[in-house]
């Protein structure tokens, strides 16, 4: 006979341990346990059977995996925690005796030093593992880099976070690893791809963060401690991987003047000297000899701009030193992969890696020189522009150190990013503004020159900041006229939403996405509720007023679908003309859609119509109304109504079919299916809701125009 098994000796009862038990086992305090768990990445588990895991008792508790706790027992940090505790006792004893000096000395000399290096290695055995887990780390560190220092957040921590974040940004700028960015109401999202890992993080806008009482900064501090160590190592590795020295040289003075990114100077490790030189060009600021700089820098910039691709040229030379006879056609060839288009139908289409090469990211803004106006957020714009190849970013000296030029009227500037409403010419006291500006010029003549607010330099493209983000997400320069100052911007869309079946895509015209009969059904609905709605006209009026305040043109469709690139300097008039043309085309398309729908609507079910008429007659008889009146009123409706009925019937049939199918399924499968259907339906409902809203909006707009 087998040995009788005792309860609570094996299985779940043994595998899980409650938090209290864990703390007792480790003989540390609860806060220490918390810290240890955060550092080691140990999290509670959900046992499959809680009652078994809790050995019969039912109150809700957190469970940890016993092996995890067992493994914490050997943690070197535990000793440090204990030393720390002992030191705390010593210090409190000294303070109790009034020996303040002793206490201070104890604190200074005997505080145990903790490093989390071994934990990083343990949690992330390979570098790619570390990169995979960098999302939270970056979001947290960027938040802390923007926090004010308080008692709970020491300034040292903040400085460290700032340094690490800027170093990471420098790496992204150098390698052009940034892929996408998005302006949300929460902050700015960025996505970079490093060694095949997509890293997404969120940077808050530069405002003072609201801190509510229920935020425990000790916990966040523990996380930040871990994340700073992690990012430090990651930065070291990243810098080394591209042959840069780590840490980069930090100029405290420049940082004091708000240099931020430009306070760092990247240094190569011998081999990468030319690259460094290129990188350093935008870093120099023209404070010393501005008039000279503007010309020399311009020359340099021009030269750089005309050079095709310094790296590529180098690489080609290195690869093939002996006599090469490049034909003219060869000049166009690059290292990049060509796109292959199948010439016939029956071929297999082979997937090719698309817009992933950093070369494309590096060339997006390569030929532009950008001036950031005072009111624009400099940090994100500078980072984004530089990461996408813009080597010359300049801004108003008010925004800080490190600008490419301080002269706003520098002729080399091709784009100016403006975020202020255009003042009507009458509103601007031109006479007053002009002398002011000249006075300013006189005051610090060579240093920096700012133009008066309304002044436009001819030949320069003025755009709103959203242009930069949309260009980055689309991978090409967009038409700047849509983003002109004061213009109503096209909607800013998230680059991470993938168009799929049943997902609403705001960039596509409504007709493409609608299910059949949806529009008719909606129209019918509206007709029906029209009478009821008349009472609520006021409501509608309010809404329409809101919409009037921010009139929207659905012009991004031509924009998004245009395959050819629009040159940066292209005139705005031409562009405007084009849009109007395209709008016409759109209208035509809509007309066609209407024609298509008509035959479908004509296709009626006679019997059904007959039945309905009969029903109506009966109703009229009951109400005592002449039949003709009703017939007249229902006449225009009948077509749409029948279309709806038809759709209803079809839907019903489908449902029945489904019902029958489900009868055949096992219960388990049916449940699974229901779940799947629930998820899908939810998605579809959401899309439907959005479509309905848009339809309404478009209708309202059309009505307004008419």
């Amino acid at each position, binding site marked *: 006979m087998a040995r009788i098994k005792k309860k609570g000796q094996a299985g779940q009862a043994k595998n899980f341990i409650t938090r209290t038990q864990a703390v007792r086992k480790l003989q540390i305090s609860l806060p220490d346990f918390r810290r240890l768990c955060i550092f080691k990445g140990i999290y509670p588990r959900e046992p499959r059977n809680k009652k078994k895991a809790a050995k019969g008792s039912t109150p809700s508790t957190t469970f940890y995996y016993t092996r995890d706790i067992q493994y914490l027992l050997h943690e070197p940090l535990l000793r440090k925690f204990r030393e720390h505790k002992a030191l705390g006792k010593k210090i409190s004893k000294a303070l109790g005796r009034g020996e303040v000096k002793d206490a201070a000395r104890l604190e200074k000399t005997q505080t145990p030093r903790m490093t989390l290096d071994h934990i990083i290695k343990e949690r992330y055995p390979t570098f790619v593992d570390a990169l995979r887990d960098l999302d939270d780390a970056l979001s*947290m560190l960027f938040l802390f880099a923007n926090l004010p220092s308080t008692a709970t957040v020491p300034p040292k921590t903040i400085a460290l976070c700032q340094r690490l974040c800027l170093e990471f940004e420098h790496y992204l700028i150098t390698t052009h690893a940034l892929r996408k960015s998005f302006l949300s109401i929460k902050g700015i999202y960025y996505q970079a791809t490093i060694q095949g890992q997509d890293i997404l993080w969120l940077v808050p*806008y530069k405002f003072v963060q609201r801190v509510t009482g229920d935020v425990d900064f000790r916990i966040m501090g523990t996380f930040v401690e871990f994340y700073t160590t992690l990012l430090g190592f990651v930065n070291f590795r990243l810098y080394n991987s591209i042959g840069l020295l780590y840490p980069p040289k930090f100029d405290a003075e420049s940082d004091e003047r708000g240099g931020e990114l430009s306070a760092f100077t990247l240094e190569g490790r011998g081999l990468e000297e030319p690259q460094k030189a290129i990188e350093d060009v935008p870093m120099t600021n023209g404070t010393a000899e501005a008039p000279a700089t503007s010309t020399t820098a311009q020359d340099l910039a021009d030269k750089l701009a005309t050079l095709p691709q310094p790296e590529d040229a180098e690489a080609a030379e290195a690869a093939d030193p002996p*006599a090469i006879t490049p034909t003219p056609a060869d000049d166009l060839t690059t290292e990049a992969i060509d796109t292959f288009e199948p010439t016939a139908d029956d071929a297999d289409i082979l997937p090719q890696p698309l817009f992933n090469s950093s070369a494309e990211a590096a060339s997006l803004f390569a030929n532009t020189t950008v001036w950031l106006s005072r009111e624009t957020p400099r940090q994100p714009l500078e980072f984004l522009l530089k990461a996408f190849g813009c080597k010359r970013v300049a801004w108003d000296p008010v925004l800080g150190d490190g600008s490419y030029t301080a002269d706003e009227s520098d002729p080399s500037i091709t784009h100016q990013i403006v975020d202020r409403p255009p003042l009507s010419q009458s509103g601007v006291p031109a006479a007053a503004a002009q002398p002011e500006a000249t006075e300013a010029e006189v005051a610090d003549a060579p240093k920096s020159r700012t133009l008066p607010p309304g002044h436009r330099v001819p030949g320069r493209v003025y755009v709103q900041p959203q242009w930069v983000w949309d260009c980055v997400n689309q991978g090409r320069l967009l038409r700047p006229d849509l983003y002109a100052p004061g213009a109503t911007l096209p909607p800013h869309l998230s680059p991470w*939403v993938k168009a799929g079946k049943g997902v609403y895509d*705001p960039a596509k015209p409504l007709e493409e996405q609608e299910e059949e009969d949806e529009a008719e059904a909606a129209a019918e609905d509206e007709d029906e509720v029209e009478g009821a709605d008349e009472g609520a006209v006021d409501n509608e009026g309010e809404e329409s007023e809101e919409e009037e305040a921010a009139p929207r043109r659905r012009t991004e469709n031509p924009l998004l679908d245009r395959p050819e690139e629009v040159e940066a300097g292209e005139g705005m008039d031409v562009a405007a003309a084009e849009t109007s043309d395209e709008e016409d085309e759109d209208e035509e398309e809509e007309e066609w859609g209407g024609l298509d729908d008509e035959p479908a609507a004509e296709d009626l079910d006679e019997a059904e119509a007959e039945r309905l008429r009969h029903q109506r007659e009966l109703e009229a008889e009951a109400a005592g109304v002449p039949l003709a009146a009703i017939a007249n009123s229902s006449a225009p409706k009948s077509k749409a109504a029948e279309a709806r009925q038809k759709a209803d019937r079809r839907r019903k049939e489908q449902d029945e079919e489904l019902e029958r199918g489900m009868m055949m399924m096992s219960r388990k499968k049916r449940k699974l299916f229901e779940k799947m259907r629930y998820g899908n339906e939810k998605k579809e409902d959401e899309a439907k809701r959005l479509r309905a809203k848009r339809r309404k909006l478009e209708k309202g707009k059309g009505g307004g125009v008419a």
Partner: protein
Amino acid sequence: MSQLNGSRKRKLVTRALPDVRDDSDELGDALLGGILSQSDDGEEFDDSDDEEEDGEEEDEGSEDEMDGEEELESDEIPSEYGEEDIREQIRNLKTADVESPKGANGRLVKVNGAELPQAATGALGETNTQDDIEDLKPNYTVTTDANGNPRYLYQEIEPGYESDDSDAPATVNTIGEIPLSFYDSYPHIGYDINGKKIMRPAKGEALDALLDSIEVPQGWTGLTDPATGKPLELSREELEVLKKLTRNEVPEEGYDPYPDMVEYFTSKTEIMPLSAAPEPKRRFVPSKHEAKRVMKIVKAIKEGRIKPYRPPEETEDEDPKVKRYDLWADEAPRPDHVMHVPAPKLPPPVHDESYHPPPEYLPDKAERAAWENTDEEDRDREYLSRDHDALRKVPGYDKFVKEKFERCLDLYLAPRVRRSKLNIDPESLLPKLPSPDELRPFPTACSVVFRGHEGRVRSLAIDPSGEYLATGGDDGTVRLWQLRTGRQNWSVKFSGDEAVNVVRWRPGTEAFILAAASGENIFLVSPPIAGKPDVERSSRDVLDAGWGYAATNGASATNGPAKKEAAAKWTRPGPQLEEKGVLVKITVRSTVKVINWHRRGEYFSTVSPQGQSSAIAIHTLSKHLTQLPFRRLKGLAQSAQFHPSKPIFFVATQRTIRSYDLARRELLKILQPGAKWISSFDIHPGGDNLIVGSYDRRLLWHDLDLSTRPYKTLRYHKKAIRAVRFHQGGLPLFADASDDGSLQIFHGKVVGDLMENATIVPLKVLRGHQVRKELGVLDVDWHPKQPWCVSAGADGTCRLWQ
């Protein structure tokens, strides 16, 4: 009593000295006395005098003691034990005295004699008893030894009672720790200390044993003493001792294990001090010496020579937060623990989180109210979409810190459970493409153009060492170029009218042999190369080896079945050509279009599409022999190739590719690429994959393990595909050449794993050749090691792509 006393005294004295030595001393002194020098004797006297005195003193002492005992005895104090003991002793003594009173006397004298030899001899002389006379009878015999000197042979000394050796064990077996059973077959059971056999004691008869068992003698144990072989008998006292030992008691009678403590220093304080000296001053005055030493230390501390506390270790002035080493320098991937659930990543933002979303994403009144009325935890979004028409109007997000804090809490407090997702994203099933960096290197640009041919270049090949390029063209010449520079090294013209259709190098670097086909003739050429005479010689040897074979075996070959018509004629091409390095000329029946070598360079196959039964020929180089393996072929042969590792031969006709096992001479497989007219094909170096180019613009990838139908059909060319080639040097690349004047480079990675299909990624279109008369690029070949390829164009040029 005095006599008794004397005997006791004697006993005491004798005990101090071992008897044997006594005897020998006696004898030695007696005999060797004369030999010893006088002076020595004198010294000995002195010594012994002293000893004697000592002995006398001892004697006296002992006598005193004895006296005391005697007194005790006489006083008749009733201490039974002592009395009995003493009485026993006395009894023993008496018996001894009775037995040999004189002997005992003599012993004493002898003993004394040992100490005082002369006196002893004198004494001996005086006390001449009969026993002594017997004793004095010389116990030796004198013989002569080898040198003629007298030699004394002493008799055995019998230690009798007179030897006074009462303590010595009677007989001790000296055989040691071995079992007695070893002696079972001998009459003795061992040896005593003198080497004499200890005889086995007589065993009693069975009756005796019976009797013994009936009347148990006192102290009978039933055991046998292994040392003596006699029955072991134990006395009562001995038994008592054993008993006590077994009980863990002290075996000695009357031993007190817990005696009363004797206090060496009394615990009582004496009223009167032992010393009347006053307390010394040093007991209450601080030590000056110590004060001096303390002052020294104080001074040192003041001067900073000594630190009162250990200073904190000199931290490097660098910031410890800056990492200065690569943590992942020796990274080794470690599989995740089965129970580990990585933290889920936050989902990316959607459209309605935008600062400026499309209007349909903005909540209307009802939605806004619903959102505001729901509990904060129940909301499906933590924010409400808002529209800002300019970036400057975007306020700070007031819940930012809170959200991040909650994420932190989630990370360390929330239990993680792995849930299987029901709706699988179909995109996750798509194959993962290699990154562009992984695909590198591949040829991207033209680096060298080889000009010189008049008319089209039909074929080209890079030699196995990768230094030279051979081309053959419509002008009937074969040219050799330096690959890196494009310089023409050598050229030969076979005939005026016929184009060189194909050139192929023999694999292997030990010889430098080129096969070229012009019309019906195949020429084997060893082009002269500068600086390598040994290679040239070896290639000549390889080509010439067959002449001899043909000469010797030619006769026998002719009377075989190959009588009707030889498949091919192997001849010398003539002196002009031989001068140029053309060594062998093979003439077949019809125009040769394709040559392919076997990997070892011993065989090569030729294809002449118009040749009907002789379309495919396999030539053996070392024998100068040509075979026609196929009597009839279905369709027109297009190309033929040997398998890179197995004895398999692939033949392409217009529509199909057949593979034959050469060893077993049977058809293995028929591949149906689905092309209308196959132009060329190539086998992957691994041998399991095949690419086929066709005139109807298709490039087909066949996986031989998968199916007879193509794994992928690629149609990227606008015109016919003329040639396809795999890279043979380990890079996962292949190229095709088309009549539209372009080459296309593909990445084609084959994994050894059978479960995984080949990955094919289009990489590059190489343009440069001009299209002449509807013909673009006619042939392509890869460098044996580098990711370089060469192409032959209809425009009369060849190009190297790097």
